[in-house]
């Protein structure tokens, strides 16, 4: 086709492109971009409805999940507890996210966690497996064997050089973190970043071999959820992570792309262990913030608050 004059010329191409860009910039409706401008969606309401609303506010699931993609949803189902203990993510939150992913054309949705207690019991008791049973393409799996993990390097790691993560997470899967808000005996609170420990094989060594807070920050440099949806419909304000503890009912869903921002907001919603805290007072959040993984100061965030 060289020398063929029937195509458009370079000049024509530049002209049309410039016109298009100009037109696009000028005519870009601000009400559409507003959705992407918020850092956090904080929605009050019933678990499923609030989750759907939060997804809409952060830009719609289509912003994160494209047709034909594999999605990993990481709820907290580490403990064989019913939802009222607030030790695990509410099944309705998981279902709402899974449905949205399937509707957005996801090829397959894996709901995964490396549970602390027996896989079978966790799947049963948390209600997550039952809730997802009738959604085609959604598989709820609790993995407790090393063969399902693969080692990756942590180039920016301070205490961890490498870590074995769930193989399903690799190979370009979209990761959506759906933690529950609860207190934690070691890290103070367990929200989104702490929840990432459910995606690795050796979670024990975090508790005795090195500083767990730096370990979580190291992990956050390699496991980066595209979206974090914090289930604070209930919050276990003490007695975490396993409970039983003091269960409060903030009735909130907090969603955002920035994992540190979501967690930092989550720190402020209830008094933990009987005291009020800020994100900066949580060592692993501060460490993650200092590594440049996200914003920690809630007052500097653009927050959409709503009720459904």
């Amino acid at each position, binding site marked *: 086709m060289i020398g063929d004059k029937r195509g458009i010329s370079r000049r024509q191409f530049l002209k049309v492109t410039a016109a298009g860009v100009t037109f696009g910039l000028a005519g870009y409706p601000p009400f559409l971009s507003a959705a992407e401008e918020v850092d956090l969606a904080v929605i009050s309401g019933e678990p499923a409805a609030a989750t759907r609303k939060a997804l809409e506010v952060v830009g719609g699931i289509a912003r994160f999940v494209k047709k034909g993609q594999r999605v990993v949803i990481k709820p907290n189902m580490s403990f064989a507890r019913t939802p009222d203990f607030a030790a695990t993510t509410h099944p309705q939150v998981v279902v709402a996210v899974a449905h949205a992913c399937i509707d957005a054309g996801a090829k397959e949705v894996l709901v995964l966690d490396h549970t602390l207690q027996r896989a079978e019991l966790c799947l049963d008791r948390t209600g997550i497996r039952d809730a997802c049973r009738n959604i085609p393409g959604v598989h709820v799996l609790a993995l*407790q064997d090393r063969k399902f993990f693969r080692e990756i390097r942590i180039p920016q790691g301070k205490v961890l050089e490498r870590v074995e993560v769930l193989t399903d997470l690799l190979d370009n899967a979209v990761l959506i973190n759906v933690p529950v808000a609860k207190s934690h005996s070691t890290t103070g609170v367990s929200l989104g970043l702490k929840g990432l420990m459910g995606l690795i094989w050796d979670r024990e060594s975090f508790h005795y071999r090195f500083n767990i807070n730096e370990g979580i920050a190291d992990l956050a440099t390699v496991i980066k959820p595209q979206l974090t949806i914090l289930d604070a419909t209930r919050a276990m304000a003490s007695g975490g992570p396993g409970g039983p503890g003091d269960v409060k009912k903030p009735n909130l869903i907090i969603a955002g792309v920035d994992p540190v921002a979501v967690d930092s907001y989550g720190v402020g919603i209830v008094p933990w262990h009987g005291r009020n805290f800020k994100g900066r007072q949580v060592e692993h959040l501060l460490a993650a913030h200092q590594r440049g993984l996200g914003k920690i100061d809630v007052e500097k965030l653009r927050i959409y608050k709503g009720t459904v």
Partner: protein
Amino acid sequence: MRKTVQALSLLIFTAFFLLATYRLPDWLPADLYLRIDPLLGLNALLASREMIGRVLWSLILIGATLAVGRFFCAYVCPLGAAIDGFDFLLFRKVRRAALRTDSTLRRWKYGLLVIFFAAAATGVSLVYFMDPIALLTRFYAFFLYPLLITVANILLDLLRPLFQGLGWVGLAHQHNPQPVFYMTAVTLLIFGAVIALNRLAPRFWCRYLCPLGALLSLISPLGVFRRRVSPECDLCMVCRKGCPMGAIGEDPFKTVSADCIQCRECAGICPQKAISYPASFSGVGEYSGPDLSRRGFVYSVGGGLTLGFLSLRTPFTSLQGRRQLIRPPGALPETAFLRTCIRCGECMKSCITNTLQPSLWESGFSGLWTPKLELRMAACEPNCNVCGKVCPTQAIRSLSMGLAKLSPWQDTQAPFFNSSATCTLGSRAGLAATSAPVLPCCS
């Protein structure tokens, strides 16, 4: 026909064994075979001196044996089926001459039976060691079941690439937690010995050792079906050689009715077709009881009492209540527990967290194979309590879960429930600390 029934019975036994998981519905007695075993039941009653509801199931077998005879050994007993199966596999072609000590050995099972009952009278449960159903359940629990899981996982690993290729996500991620137990090797050795003894004589175990067979043979001669030999018999003695129980003596017209298990092997191999098993209601007239001599009986009683003495008069016994061995939730107080537990291993098999493990000497000689909570394995799952559901002698009681109640037994070694009605024992790898006052849990 008999082999089909036997195989079916073994299959049912296996199926019930596999059903003993934490999903077991309340109405299903997964421990059925153990419940209908009158030997285990009577020993538990005698040793514990308590009425045990589930032991009443054994009236089924007692009644059936009274009516029909000792058919249990030939048709129902899963260990008998296993012995016959292995006999066919391993010793089918081995020529086994009649043992010269046959008549002496034949008394052993009665001696053992007396020993067990005498020990039970002193409050020591020993029968578990040789009861066929408990023995086989233990072998299943501590050896076969872990082996089954190992093999299943190997197969899953081999087929995993296929599952991944086919997009079968569930199977591609399937992995069964491997149960592990103390005393697996010991249990295998004992079962292996039971099978190996067949090399000496067919059904060596059933003929000479089995205490359940001995107990059933006390009442089986009252059953209605008897072996009858018609005058067509030409004394070829094929039946005498072929009888797996050695129940036919020098005179082929006579039957040692206590040892006849109604397998009808003789009727099948008789060249003259002279043997039949008609129903006859002549009753006690032909009763031939056990051939245990008076001296043997006295020795056995003495032996049982001595074993009881040896087991009970040790520091273990006096420290029982104070020892820190943690029993399954709902277990009877230690002393009563040791007397009632039949060491079948059903609770340990069904334990979902693999926390329940057989003890060796931790609670003394009388505590062999009893279940203990080994919290280094995993925390006990407080909402499960399947161990109470499958305990055939209710040494572990079935708890109604959810509410903690104050126990009348203060020495109960059961998990502790805190004020929010949740067991905190080991909920964090055994390191749970609770500020709430703890109550022993027993309903």
